[in-house]
């Protein structure tokens, strides 16, 4: 009987049928995948989504969708509006009088000044605030402020004295109470990290000492050291004014972004000592005027502090606590996207305004997969963006396109100016010229870094057209070095040798150090590599200036203040550089408020650094994203924000072509 013969094959037939049916269903479902969802493969695990501390570029880009800063960088690396549609600097000068009548008299005197002169001074406004006269000048650093104070000096303003009290952290509350006491006439108080404080008061010098001693003696175990820092007719403070965008500066519940939110954000960010956000430490106060104006008052004349706001996510004030919980992934941001779901396998983001019909409506992020799984997923068109991606991209499939991502950091070769072996700038220049950075970049899938400033910013000096320089050999001969029969450079019998510090816990950097040492050896200089843990390099050797040369990685930050690295008093000046001209250039750059003048000042700093040969920018990383050609045809850019922006219209004379797949 044929039917009985077929009976043993029934399970196999059933299995084949189940396979065919399920395959047909799954494949048709996949083909009908909604265009409203993009799938992104991350370079690592699913991100924690800490708004202030993204672990990598991928997390930073996700956070950029969830949260909005006041200012962000545009594609050209220039500050562009975000929550703030406009911002500008002005100078506020406060001048205190014995009573309101005298302040009024001072104001009348200013009003009597011809309008042309006031315009020349940049004086925008003179306002009475109790017994003080608050002057507003168009820009910080204007000489008109001094002229106005000289004029007011004839109306007997109270002098303003600046004091530094070397207190300790536990004494903070005591000093706050002192400042709040009306009889002490403290106008401003400022605490350093170590607990020391500075106060601005209108009391006379003798009176301050006495009052301070009377206040502190019963409250503190010992009296802190106190000294006067200076005296002035008024207090000048630069003010950064943001005009918030009424349409964009709103939380998911419709409430506007307020000064409280910004203040709470700064409060949450400050203890984290975020790289590139040092400018936040100089904030004296944050005030609001109505719903749309936010004023940030600074205590120092530093234009570079603006950079601290670039890309800083503004978080909603948590209310009673006053501090947001930045690590909470579900924390609502002012961005156009929100976290809809998160589990072990994926992270789902949804548009907040999904009713608008804009596509895509969802972004689904998957953690990194093994290389073969990634290739398979790519082959099945299951992923739209892989990022950053180098695996399997040596021969990318035709439906995938590699696009460059912004560089995240650079690597510097730093010389120690105090080391006797490499103290001569000419010798350092020759050693720099012995290196073939292009070859090093090729080995490390990186690009040659050409500037001391972060890549791609509006102030970064353009790649320079280098004038012909003498080669390393000629340079060394000019300095009195001679090559022996083995090709080693010697001077007075001493071979040209030095030590290069490299981190033992960073294999790629160690390999790079070895490649550099080989290049130097070929050119006749002996570089011995000394390996230490990264923390030991910084904590034990760089901090104490005990090295000849070291490779130092640096993150690309939007700030242009380089004083910490190269100023003689800089916190990170590991090279021991002390150059008066460079210090002046750095100070001028840091205090520049006019963004249009920053590139020229940055160029001057860069040229001086090149003259000193204190460091050599080696490499900058060159990450890539791989995007689906079909999905992103006509959408330029590589970051999520760029890809999500509406597709650019094609020029009318070009015909639309379907991607070939």
């Amino acid at each position, binding site marked *: 009987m044929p039917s009985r*013969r077929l009976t043993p094959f029934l399970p196999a037939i059933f299995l084949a049928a189940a396979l065919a049916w399920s395959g047909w269903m*799954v494949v048709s479902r996949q083909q009908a995948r909604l265009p409203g969802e993009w*799938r992104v493969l991350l370079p690592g695990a699913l991100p924690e989504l800490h708004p202030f501390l993204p672990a990598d570029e991928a997390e930073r880009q996700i956070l950029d969708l969830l949260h909005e800063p006041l200012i962000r960088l545009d594609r050209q690396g220039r500050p562009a509006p975000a929550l703030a549609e406009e911002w500008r600097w002005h100078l506020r000068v406060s001048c205190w009088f014995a009573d309101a009548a005298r302040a009024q008299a001072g104001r009348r005197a200013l009003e009597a000044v011809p309008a042309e002169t006031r315009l020349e001074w940049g004086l925008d406004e003179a306002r009475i605030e109790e017994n003080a006269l608050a002057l507003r000048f168009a820009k910080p650093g204007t000489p008109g402020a001094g002229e106005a104070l000289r004029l007011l000096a004839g109306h007997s303003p109270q002098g303003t004295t600046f004091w530094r009290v070397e207190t300790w952290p536990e004494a903070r509350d005591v000093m706050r109470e002192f400042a709040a006491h009306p009889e002490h006439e403290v106008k401003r108080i400022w605490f350093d990290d170590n607990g020391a404080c500075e106060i601005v008061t209108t009391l006379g010098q003798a009176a301050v000492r006495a009052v301070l001693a009377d206040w502190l003696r019963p409250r503190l175990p010992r009296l802190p050291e106190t000294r006067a820092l200076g005296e002035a007719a008024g207090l000048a403070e630069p003010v950064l004014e943001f005009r918030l965008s009424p349409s964009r500066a709103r939380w998911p519940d419709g409430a506007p972004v307020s000064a409280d939110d910004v203040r709470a954000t700064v409060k949450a960010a400050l203890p984290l000592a975020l790289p590139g956000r040092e400018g936040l430490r100089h904030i004296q106060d944050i005030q609001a005027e109505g719903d749309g104006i936010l004023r940030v008052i600074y205590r120092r004349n530093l234009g570079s502090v603006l950079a601290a706001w670039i890309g800083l996510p503004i978080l909603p004030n948590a209310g009673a606590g006053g501090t947001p919980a930045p690590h909470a992934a579900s924390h609502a941001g002012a961005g156009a996207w929100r976290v809809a779901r998160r589990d072990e396998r994926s992270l789902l983001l949804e548009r907040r305004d999904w009713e608008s019909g804009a596509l895509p409506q969802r972004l689904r992020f998957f953690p990194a997969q093994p290389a073969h799984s990634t290739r398979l997923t790519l082959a099945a068109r299951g992923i739209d963006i892989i990022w950053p991606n180098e*695996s399997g991209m040596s021969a990318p499939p035709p439906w995938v396109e590699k696009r460059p991502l912004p560089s995240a950091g650079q690597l510097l070769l730093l010389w120690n100016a105090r080391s006797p072996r490499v103290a001569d700038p000419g010798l350092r220049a020759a050693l720099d010229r012995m290196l073939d950075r292009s070859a090093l970049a090729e080995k490390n899938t990186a690009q040659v870094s050409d500037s001391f400033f972060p890549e791609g910013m509006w102030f970064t000096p353009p790649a320079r057209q280098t004038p012909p320089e003498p080669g390393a050999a000629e340079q060394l001969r000019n300095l009195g070095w001679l090559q022996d029969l083995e090709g080693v450079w010697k001077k007075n019998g001493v071979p040209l040798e030095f030590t290069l510090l490299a981190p033992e816990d960073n294999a790629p950097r160690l390999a790079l150090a070895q490649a550099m040492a080989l290049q130097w050896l070929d050119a006749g200089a002996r570089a011995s590599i000394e390996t230490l843990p990264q923390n030991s390099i910084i904590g034990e050797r760089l901090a104490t200036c005990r090295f000849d040369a070291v490779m130092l990685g640096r993150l690309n930050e939007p700030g242009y203040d380089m004083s910490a690295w190269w100023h003689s008093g800089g916190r990170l000046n590991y090279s021991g550089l002390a150059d008066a001209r460079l210090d002046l250039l750095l100070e001028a750059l840091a205090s520049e408020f006019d963004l249009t003048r920053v590139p020229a000042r940055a160029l001057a700093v860069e040229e001086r650094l090149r003259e000193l040969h204190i460091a050599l920018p080696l490499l900058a990383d060159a990450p890539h994203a791989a995007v689906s050609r079909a999905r992103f045809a006509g959408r330029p850019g590589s970051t999520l924000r760029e890809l999500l922006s509406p597709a650019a219209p094609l020029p009318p004379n070009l015909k639309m072509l379907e991607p070939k797949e």
Partner: protein
Amino acid sequence: MTASLADTSRRLDLTYLMADPPGLLSWNGLGHILSCLWIMMAALAVSGPAAHGLAAFFINGRAWLRWPARVLAQGLAFLPLTALALAAAGGMAGARGWPVPSLMPLENEPGLASWLWYWTPAVTLLCLPLTAQIFAGLLAANASPRRVLMGAACLAAAGVVMLSETLEILPGMAAPARALRQAHPAVLRHAVAHLALLAGLGTALAALWPAPARKHLISAADLIREGAVVIGCAPWRLWWRHRLPVLARPAMALVLDALAWCAALAGAWGCLVPLPLLADLHTAGEHFLEQPGALPAAALPVALCSLSLWLAARIVRHGST
């Protein structure tokens, strides 16, 4: 400088490997064992009857076809399962763009179709060598179905581990498989224990198959022992002179059989990791997406090598194939 995705993958692998493997008696370990067992049993439930049906076709009247069919089936059973699995995955995803859910990070939509699409490809793949192996076993003279099934259960246990590695259907089983690949001592013991437990459970379940009652016969060894006692000779001396040369042939056949399966296992592993003499296979395994058909072709010499050893074992044991 930049952590590449390959680095990340390696890092993830290493992290996974270095993590404590799930204990055999822990819920995870037990869950993995049960999952493996269900795949093995499903594959045996399909391939056992199918192989019986096929064997019946040849046993009843087509005796001249029995030998070539058996050799062909055994050759198919020796084809590395990893090569078949990779070729199938490459054909589905690379050539047709179909999803292979176990290998992709995509979320499975709930439903019967997704569930079936996740498991049935693995069961089907496992059925191929099992059917061939059972079929070849049943065609042998004096074949015991129970022994054939027990052997197939061992093969199924090894096959599940291979599928876990290539298709990652059971993430928990991928760790033992990777341990075998990377020979990490901390997890190797665990992997061997897993494999032994699976094979043991499989054979134990297969042993439940009813076997025909055997007549009690006095064995040759018993006869020799009794004869030695009768003529006053030490039994061990007679066993050494007369019985050992007879036993040497099956022992050598056993060694050849073991070598045949070792070669097949090496072929399976050679698709995934570079092994000496199997560079072509590994290269084909690396390009399974672009040329899925090249992988079984590259695995054919390995299968032929195993088949040759297996035939040699038959010759040594029986004097003919």
